[in-house]
């Protein structure tokens, strides 16, 4: 490292930092080291695992799409439109960030469960279906997405919107051609956050959508089940999830680096 030499890093800071690194790295390292590589292909090929992988991939993809479709306009509303009660709406929208996922699941059941306040009037059933999984995931991921995109919208402020308006653009044209392209890094970051949140979602999913192999059993739910019956399988599946999440995050990071 170059720069002025300010003296040695003091132990009082170095020691806790090192413990922190160990705390974060050691469990993941043992997970990688302790993986039964020999039986890995066999586990990967099993029906249950393939189904859980497919459900996780599909539900996380749909969740990201749901977040983009609902969350982008929501972030725009919070960042650009000065309406009464905006602060309250903003606070409410962000509650799921700090909500225990299992509470989110219970809330969804209360509202949309078969005998829920809204659910009992619906002509179709949401819980224990794939749409239930996506709904639960979107519920917990959306605040992350909104936060990221709202931040991106605020960094450019409204100044370019004003310029577009003086050139005769209405708000929709401005949103499409100016606001959204400028907030694209935030949209990508938010999507990555929402995707990662969806990938690991367990509590709300299992509470609201259950754990049925082939319909609602996602990877985390399968890992939870497997840990009781066959810890080796649980470790294998965990490794897959780890590789998947790290892999996609690295990919996204490189894309951003190119975009800049």
């Amino acid at each position, binding site marked *: 490292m170059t720069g002025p030499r300010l003296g040695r890093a003091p132990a009082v800071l170095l020691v806790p930092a090192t413990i922190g690194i160990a705390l974060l790295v050691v469990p993941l390292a043992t997970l990688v080291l302790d993986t039964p590589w020999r039986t890995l292909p066999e586990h990967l090929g099993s029906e249950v695992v393939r189904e859980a992988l497919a459900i996780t991939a599909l539900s996380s993809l749909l969740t990201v799409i749901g977040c983009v479709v609902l969350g982008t306009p929501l972030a725009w509303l919070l960042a650009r439109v000065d309406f009464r009660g905006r602060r309250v709406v903003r606070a409410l929208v962000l509650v799921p960030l700090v909500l225990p996922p299992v509470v989110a699941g219970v809330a969804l059941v209360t509202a949309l469960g078969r005998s829920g306040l809204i659910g009992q009037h619906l002509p179709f059933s949401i819980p224990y279906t794939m749409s239930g999984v996506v709904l639960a995931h979107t519920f917990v991921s959306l605040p992350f997405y909104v936060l990221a995109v709202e931040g991106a919208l605020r960094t450019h402020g409204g*100044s*370019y919107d*004003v*310029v*577009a*308006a*003086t*050139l*005769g*653009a*209405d708000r929709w*044209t401005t949103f499409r*051609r*100016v606001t959204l*392209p*400028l907030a694209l890094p935030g949209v990508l970051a938010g999507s990555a956050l929402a995707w990662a949140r969806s990938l690991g979602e367990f509590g709300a999913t299992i509470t609201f959508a259950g754990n049925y192999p082939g319909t609602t059993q996602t990877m985390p739910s399968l890992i939870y089940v497997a840990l009781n019956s066959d810890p080796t399988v649980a470790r294998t599946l965990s490794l897959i999830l780890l590789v998947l999440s790290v892999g996609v995050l690295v990919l996204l990071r490189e894309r951003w680096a190119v975009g800049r």
Partner: protein
Amino acid sequence: MRVEVDIPGRVSADLEAAAGEVVVVIGPNGAGKSTLLRAIAGLEPGRVRVGDDDWTDLEVPRRRVGYVFQDQSLFPHLSALDNVAFGPRARGRHRREAEDLALGWLRRFGIAELAHRKPRELSGGQAQRVAIARALATDPDVLLLDEPFTGLDVSVQVALRIELGQHLRDFPGIALLVTHDAIDALTLADRVLVLDEGRVAQVGPPAEVAAEPRTPHVARLVGLNLVADGEDLIAFTPDAVTVSLAEPEGSSRLRWHGPIATLAPHGDAVRLLVHASPDLLADLTPAAATELALVPGREVWLSAKATAVSRYGAAATGR
């Protein structure tokens, strides 16, 4: 065409300009120059009439203005061409048509070869040309330019000022240009509008405003001393002032007294700023300055011959 702007408590101004005229707006900081432009564009709430139309409740996109912002504000993600084509497209032209139009404008500004560059790949002068082309491309009724030369190199300013003058001559609407530079006012304006504390202090052709300024700000811009004398204003150049240590003899009422604030070379002369009432400038030769042993803080007498000053009524005219 008549333009009336009223923002209660801040700016109240109306001006009459023929189509094709350039009105240069000058005035001290805080006089409301930018606010005036922003109100016409609808960026500040206020009552606005342009010609026979009431714009007060018109949304920003519906006002036929072109706005050149101080910092250019080019869309960073769009090429120069797309920046200029943005307005025509937003106002309903087809993509190809808008791009042809935009290319025409870039050609007129001599920067057609930069059409596909992003704003960050343009120099300050090039970016300002794109910004002006973008504002003109929507064919506005009123062109608003907010200090378009600020932040550019002096040589770039000179070239761009000449170029802008040519384009403004071809522009059929009225142009309002805010500046704090006397050169802009004198070279580009058909009419100069002096704002002071949100009100029109003076309107007139640039030569008239420069010769008979009505506000201390304009007097300073054009390098004149301005003194109120009853109902009249008196303007005179710094080299018409005589400096002496003792009270000048004779009956002239044109004499003032005060300490020297600053003393600096000005061309071949030495220019004094004297804290009389009001502040006055005086030029004298270096030899004279040395002989009188002038230093800041020294009390001096200033006087001017009645034949060397111009005297005119203080009431606002030139509407």
